């Protein structure tokens, strides 16, 4: 029975409906995932080289000291992005499957996710190239077992949080509290997370059976708790929408993705199928390579690096958003007379630009590993762009009144250009630099960056308000803009 359910899951991954949309999209997705896994595997295989320690005890120790950050990142990534598997069991609720089997199946597929897959890819190559050579087979196997147990614990902890959020929405605050506590421990109390992490994983390497047993017990408890929660939650709620699981309905992430997917696809097609926008995309790629060269070869000050990272992390957003609504001028009438949600369209753009900024980090990963690129500085710039920069550009774009013919070439073509766009971009780049200068005159650099991060998150948490202001402005200027778009 379980075997059949698992086979169906494999089929659903291979025959994913979203990949049917476009052949190019399918190829790009497959290549991206394969490239990412290869990169992670390669990183594990050459970890000694990239950490400049060689395949030695030191490289394992260094890896152990940063493992805590990897697990924390994984926890938040899974919490935010892991799909809700409850949907997969909907068809089986009609069939004569025992409820316990369905829940067991749900628990099994929960531990299978891209983060775990990536981590295991790394662990395998890292173990072959380094851990086995330094610590021998016995200790290495115990170490690997401990890490795998931790990965599973992490997956089920995320599931537990998601289930609890389904029961009571304010549980989300608990996650914020945990994140804040960690920041306080690190920044205010100056407790070294690296040392804690190194000690913990060194105990695994030295074959601490008690620790392994403790991890097994934790995993067991999490499984039992999740099992009970799911058992109570999985049922049809006929009074609401038939065919929708209660727990699934409570989780908003799927419907959010579903509602925004078509708008995101429209944006991707707008960029990839029109000469003028494709030209901008190529310019962005040129800049990305140029900055790679600069970062690799120049030792820049923190302020210059920050400017570079602001431009870099927001390069797609800046290039495309500054002409926002002018790109859409050729179908703005369509947007105006249909039940087209401009707000969702803007959100989709926002998500795409931010995601591209994150994906860019993968390209720069070798520089991060070599210590030539400060990842915190980059993420601060990305967060700033996402929370402040794009909103300012979106707002200023409501003043774009020129039509842009999408089929024209980008070169020697000033159609759609205006001075406001240039000034806006300048302000967006200079503003955070001034803030960083001010903060670093009072605090240390890491503290300043954390203050900036907190400010960005605070501003981002009011995103609905900013979208509302942008839309109000757009509707106020709608008729003026449309006259320009028809010229």
């Amino acid at each position, binding site marked *: 029975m379980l075997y059949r359910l698992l086979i169906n899951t494999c089929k659903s991954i291979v025959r994913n409906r979203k990949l049917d949309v476009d052949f190019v999209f399918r190829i790009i997705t497959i290549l991206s995932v394969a490239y990412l896994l290869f990169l992670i595997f390669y990183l594990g295989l050459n970890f000694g080289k990239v950490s400049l320690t060689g395949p030695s005890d030191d490289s394992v120790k260094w890896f152990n000291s940063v493992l805590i950050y990897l697990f924390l990142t994984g926890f938040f990534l899974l919490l935010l992005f892991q799909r809700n598997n409850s949907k997969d069991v909907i068809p089986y609720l009609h069939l004569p499957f025992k409820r316990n089997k369905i829940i067991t199946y749900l628990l099994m597929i929960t531990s299978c996710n891209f983060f775990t897959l990536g981590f295991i890819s790394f662990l395998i190559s890292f173990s072959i190239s380094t851990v086995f050579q330094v610590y021998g087979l016995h200790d290495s196997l115990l170490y690997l077992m401990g890490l795998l147990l931790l990965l599973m614990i992490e997956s089920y902890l995320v599931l537990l949080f998601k289930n609890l959020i389904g029961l009571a929405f304010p549980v989300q605050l608990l996650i914020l509290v945990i994140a804040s506590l960690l920041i306080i421990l690190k920044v205010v109390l100056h407790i070294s997370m690296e040392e804690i992490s190194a000690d913990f994983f060194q105990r695994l390497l030295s074959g601490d059976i008690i620790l392994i047993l403790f991890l097994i017990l934790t995993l067991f408890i999490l499984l039992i708790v999740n099992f009970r929660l799911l058992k109570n939650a999985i049922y049809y709620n006929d009074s609401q929408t038939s065919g929708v699981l209660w727990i699934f309905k409570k989780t908003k992430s799927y419907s959010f993705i579903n509602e925004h997917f078509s708008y995101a696809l*429209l944006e991707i097609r707008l960029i990839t199928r029109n000469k003028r926008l494709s030209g901008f995309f190529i310019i962005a790629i040129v800049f990305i390579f140029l900055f790679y060269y600069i970062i690799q070869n120049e030792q820049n000050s923190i302020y210059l690096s920050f400017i570079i990272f602001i431009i870099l992390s927001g390069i797609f957003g800046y290039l495309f958003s500054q002409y926002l609504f002018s790109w859409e001028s050729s179908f703005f*009438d369509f947007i105006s*007379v249909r*039940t087209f949600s401009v707000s969702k369209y803007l959100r989709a753009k926002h998500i795409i630009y931010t995601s591209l900024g994150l994906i860019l980090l993968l390209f720069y990963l070798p520089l991060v590993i070599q210590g030539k690129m400060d990842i915190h500085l980059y993420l601060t710039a990305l967060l700033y762009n996402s929370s402040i920069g794009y909103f300012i550009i979106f707002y200023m774009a409501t003043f774009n009144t020129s039509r842009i013919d999408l*089929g024209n070439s980008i070169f020697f073509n000033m159609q759609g250009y205006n001075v406001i766009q240039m000034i806006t971009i300048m302000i967006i780049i200079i503003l955070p630099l001034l803030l960083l200068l001010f903060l670093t005159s009072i605090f240390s650099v890491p503290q300043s960056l954390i203050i900036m991060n907190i400010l960005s998150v605070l501003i981002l948490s009011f995103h609905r308000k900013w979208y509302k202001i942008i839309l109000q402005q757009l509707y106020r200027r709608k*008729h003026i803009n449309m006259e320009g778009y028809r010229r």
Partner: protein
Amino acid sequence: MISIENLLKKFGSTVAVDIENLNIPQGEIFGLVGNNGAGKTTLLRLMLDLLKPERGNIKSKSKIIYQSEHWKKYTGSFIDDNFLIEFLKPEEYFDFIGFLYGMDTTEIKKRLEGFGTFMNGEVFGINKYIRNLSSGNKQKVGIIGAMLSEPEVLILDEPFNFLDPSSQMSLKGILKRYHEGNTKTIIISSHNLNHISDLCTRVALMEKGKIIKDYANNSDSMKEIETYFNSQIGIF
């Protein structure tokens, strides 16, 4: 269904539309005729809140159209290429419209089957973006897109333009079937008096932004309209 009160739209000093009162009840096929520059397209644009009038109101189901967006849910329209998303393929365009109106793929397919003869195998499965279609096929995509959500109000500007004779006949059949049951309101502007006379239950004649005649469609009114156009070029 749709009512216009004291409407004035100017482009500079030129009056484009000046209508004191016009009511289009539910279930009517309302035809707009007039020479170039008479204000037909401008009136349709005003009805879709694409232009802001200098004064006056347009109400749809008793609500002023530029004060809410309720009318978008039950109004389908096609005026020109700006109503198309030209970098999409026709299938993708219809899918997107379906998504906007909460239709699933099966429902979209089912509704598109009704336009099979009209499309004549020239729109689907040809792997072309809308921008690369001929003017006639673009026109077909726009009209189908407007009708896909089966709106209560359908607004079409010169729908017979660019269409070959067979497609024109096919479109006329589609619009007649669409109107069966008298629940749908259709507003059409056209230069082709034959089509207007075949389709419409009511015809308004526009000149310099004003509605100078408003007839129930019968043979006498069509003769009168023909006489009007003949008089414009000095034929009596």
